[in-house]
């Protein structure tokens, strides 16, 4: 892809440290030559990618492009067939090492909540703390996602929007440095989606790195600082959000943004 180098150049200049070709302090996560296949089908093809520290990175692309696979490999819950995942320039292929290097959490498109009360779901993720501070944090988080009134209800009886807000609160309970969102607002009503967006923006302002998969172009425009466009298992475009939305470089990006199906 002719423009990949260009994009990397565009992203680099401010931070680039020419003395160390291997370690890029601007990148919080880096993928090197990552391949992933399932049932003899190559789903991610030799991905090289650097994700910058801070801000919100949106991962976009058509269905089946490999967005969810990519974000799961970044998060460390899926192992690539070959290639390396680096956090802060350190190899982090074992999930144990990764969690030591970086506190991270993920909100899935379909939240899996424990068969417990709303409160107990949060307490489960706060269990490393003393009981008293855990309760305090639990109350604060429930307020944040506006679920305080449902604290004692069974989590699985909540509406989709409420469940996703609880999943976000649970993700925040571990005070992550990096927060992954995999189409977290895809099937939510606008009110719940906006609660989540507000919280995401606040987290970003507090220095949390956000990496989100989204199909919602308007949402990406509202939130993203930079965008990665995946197409058929390859990164076809990585750009600052303003560049990507105003001046997409590739045909795929143009088609995607204008809402057209891609046909070869």
């Amino acid at each position, binding site marked *: 892809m002719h423009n990949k180098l260009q994009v990397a150049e565009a992203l680099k200049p401010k931070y680039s440290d020419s003395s160390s070709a291997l370690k890029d302090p601007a990148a919080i996560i880096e993928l090197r030559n990552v391949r992933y296949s399932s049932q003899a089908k190559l789903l991610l093809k030799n991905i090289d990618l650097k994700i910058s520290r801070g801000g919100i990175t949106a991962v976009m692309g058509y269905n089946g492009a490999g967005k969810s696979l990519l974000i799961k490999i970044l*998060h460390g*819950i899926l192992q690539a067939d070959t290639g390396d995942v680096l956090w802060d320039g350190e190899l982090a292929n074992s*999930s*144990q090492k990764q*969690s030591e290097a970086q506190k991270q*959490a*993920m909100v*899935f498109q379909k939240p*899996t909540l*424990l*068969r*417990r*009360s709303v409160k*107990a779901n949060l307490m*489960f*993720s706060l269990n490393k703390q003393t009981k008293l501070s855990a309760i305090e944090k639990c109350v604060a988080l429930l307020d944040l996602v506006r679920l305080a009134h449902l604290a*004692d*209800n*069974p*989590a*699985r*009886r909540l509406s989709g929007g409420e469940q996703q807000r609880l999943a976000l609160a649970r993700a925040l309970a*571990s005070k992550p440095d990096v927060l992954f969102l995999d189409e977290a607002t895809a099937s939510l009503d606008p009110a719940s989606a906006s609660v989540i967006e507000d919280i995401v923006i606040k987290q970003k302002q507090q220095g949390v790195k956000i990496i989100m998969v989204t199909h919602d172009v308007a949402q990406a425009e509202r939130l993203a600082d930079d965008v990665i466009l995946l197409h058929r298992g390859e990164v076809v475009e990585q750009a600052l959000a303003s560049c990507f939305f105003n001046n997409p470089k590739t045909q795929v990006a143009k088609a995607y943004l204008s809402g057209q199906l891609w046909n070869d």
Partner: protein
Amino acid sequence: MQDSILSRTLWLLKSADSGLWEVVGLSLRVSGTAVLISCAFGFILGGVLATTRFRGRSAIHIFLNASMSMPPVVVGLIVYMLLSRSGPLGWLGLLYTPTAMIIAQTLLITPLIAALSRQIIEDLFNEYAEQFASMRLSFFKKIRATLWDARFSLLTVALAGLGRSLSEVGAVIIVGGNIEHLTRVMTTAIALETSKGDLPMALALGAILLTIALLINTLLSMLNLSARRFAYA
């Protein structure tokens, strides 16, 4: 005959010296203990099968499913041969004791509990797998949380085990010997009354067994319901 069954049942319930409570008590003690031990083994076995992958796993799985349909008489015979004075464990002197009945029923229902709990634990464990991986939980913590969240389903499994053990007669009559005041339980008493041709008495005992089963199940399902209402769904 209906009148006769009802009056016999009431008569049984009224006359405390009929030894009825002794028989009922022993039934509950034997089956209850067998279920507790079976749950200890069965949940662990089911949990291991549900959450780990190893060679021979599916063979064990098939074996467990097959042994769910093992006739109690066969289990009784196996235990009889083990515990008989001429058998390998004869020196323990356990044949014709409640302990022998507990052993037989434990062997009878452990496969049932293991197979059913494996299914429940595996389903929930798989459902939680991605979330727990994301939370970077240790294997032990994953198991603990899964078992805890599956507890009411597992209680149902324990009840199924209790039902099978309370109702079976084939195993306990062989290893217990249906000895009065020692190893006579509800089902062997029913078998005895039937063989004496005292059918109303046998049916009265059956009615009491059914009532006890109903009571236990009602109690536990009430517990289950209130728990579900509270937090579990």
